[in-house]
């Protein structure tokens, strides 16, 4: 099994102006990822951009790996230009993914924006599909809704500008959800991925309500496999590497 492998692009599908779904076929034997893990993806052959970029896998099948990505800067602009047949170098699967909930706990998934990329594979792996709260800035940024509906999860969407689903932030929706009568007596295990301020707010709610859970963090990365210490974040147990001990951390460990 190779941790660093060549792959070729099968498809690079625009979902809207800035979000794409990239499908690649690994050309070397690779090991199976688990939900929450990620890959370092290298596209170009120049020194600018220089480093590979980290992306959660969105879905893995026998022949292919899919990434759901937002175009941000140089690296993702280059990714956007990939065409079927193009070659690339990938490292992974990397990091520590989402642990299974202990017996008696019901998973509750919370995605903000492109955070859905990392949670989709988790939702997929439960036989009894978990509830998913999925928020974004506007309707256009709510991605792959068809797929999510097909999955059979209870899907609660919300947008900051009220253009789709419920009005407001995922944190408002989360509070309502937890306070609703149907949630009484249920022990939830939160799994959240999204922008840092959202994760910090969710963590506060979870701590206040004594709910356990996990957040998936992002940090700039140089290596992705634990060597550079560039991605370290402060936790209650000292600095930890997002790429190795993370990206998924227990909510109570993170010092925001």
């Amino acid at each position: 099994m190779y941790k660093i492998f060549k792959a070729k692009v099968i498809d690079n599908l625009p979902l809207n102006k800035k979000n794409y779904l990239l499908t690649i076929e690994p050309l070397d034997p690779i090991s199976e990822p688990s939900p929450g893990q990620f890959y370092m993806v290298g596209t170009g052959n120049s020194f600018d951009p220089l480093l590979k970029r980290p992306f959660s896998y969105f879905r893995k099948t026998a022949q292919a790996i899919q990434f759901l990505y937002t175009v941000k800067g140089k690296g993702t602009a280059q990714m956007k230009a990939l065409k079927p047949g193009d070659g690339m170098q990938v490292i992974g699967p990397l990091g520590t993914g989402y642990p299974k909930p202990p017996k008696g706990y019901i998973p509750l998934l919370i995605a903000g924006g492109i955070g859905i990329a990392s949670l989709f594979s988790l939702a997929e792996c439960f036989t009894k599909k978990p509830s998913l709260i999925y928020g974004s800035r506007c309707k256009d940024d709510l991605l792959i809704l068809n797929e999510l509906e097909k999955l059979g999860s209870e899907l609660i969407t919300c947008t900051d500008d009220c253009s789709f689903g419920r009005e407001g932030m995922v944190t408002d929706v989360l509070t309502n959800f937890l306070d609703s009568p149907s949630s009484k007596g249920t022990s939830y295990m939160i799994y959240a991925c999204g922008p840092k301020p959202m994760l910090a707010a969710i963590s506060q709610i979870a701590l206040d309500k004594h709910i356990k859970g996990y957040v998936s963090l992002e940090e700039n990365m140089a290596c992705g496999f634990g060597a550079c210490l560039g991605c370290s974040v402060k936790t209650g147990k000292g600095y930890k590497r997002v790429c190795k001990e993370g990206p998924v951390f227990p909510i109570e460990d993170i010092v925001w």
Partner: protein
Amino acid sequence: MKGLYCPLAHSRPDIHRDSEVNSVFDSIQIRSRTIQSLTTTDYSMDLSVNIGKLKLKNPVMTASGTFGYGEEYADFVDLNLLGGIVVKGISLKPMEGNPAPRICETPCGMLNAIGLQNVGLKTFLRDKLPYLRNFDTKIVVNILGNSVQEYVRLAKTLVDTGVDGIELNVSCPNVKKGGMTFGIDPRSLAKLITAVKRTVSSTVLITKLSPNVSSIPDFSRVAEDAGSDAISLINTIPALSIDTETWKPRLANVTGGLSGPAIKPIALRMVWEASQAVSIPVIGIGGITNALDALEFLLAGASAVQVGTGNFLNPKATIEIISGLAAYLRRKNIQTIGDIIGGMKGTKSGHNPDH
């Protein structure tokens, strides 16, 4: 492809033939131009070099802070093939390092302000060194202290455990105390080297020079005169990057050290200057990503090289450089790598037969 969400599946082009794909990869691999696996003939080339008393099987080492404690690369590289491993800088007590973000990318380079996060001497000796000892390669420990006494204690303890070499980090731009102060003041540098050399005696002592000085030749001579067995350069170059949306620096530490291909020409000039100034071996560091980069440093006078940021771009960079060097020797019909060292032509003092 069954079950894969792919709305354009019907219009997906046929899967390309392997040969076409390979040609795409050939262009991707310009970064490490000489990708060839080590063959038996490669071993017949003499790649070995000497850093003082330290004999390396080839001139390719890893740069401190970019190769963890070796174990992080075990998935990618057969550590036995390396000339040497220089581990992350070790201090007496563990260090937490700087807040995030600690790194950001700049054109053809990156800034880092890790702040020398490390496990500390005790944990290094207990958990990290035994692992490294399993491999047939030289282990050099990069050390950092706040005082001469701290450096001496670190060096003494490490030498007693039998490490192959000590690299003095006197040039880290990312910590407030120590480190850099020794690197930019010739008198304290000389004092430090003399004291450490006295304790480590026969173990090879390498002084890692700061690029942040007005004269590389002067500092190289200070290191040589004080008893250093070799010098390595360069460490990262202090630099800054600003986010124009937020008007904030991209690193929490504000400034960081620039590394990667962007610094290679500067590093090469400094290595050349250093090798002209001293007769102890010089180890070249800075932006090396492939065998041709390494060759430039050897031609400029370096007896060995260290690969840093290049490991992040391609975790196999070191071994590809080693096989690339062997392939180069074969192509040029050169018997030993030593014949390349200091071989730059067209300068008054191009070839330096001392090496």
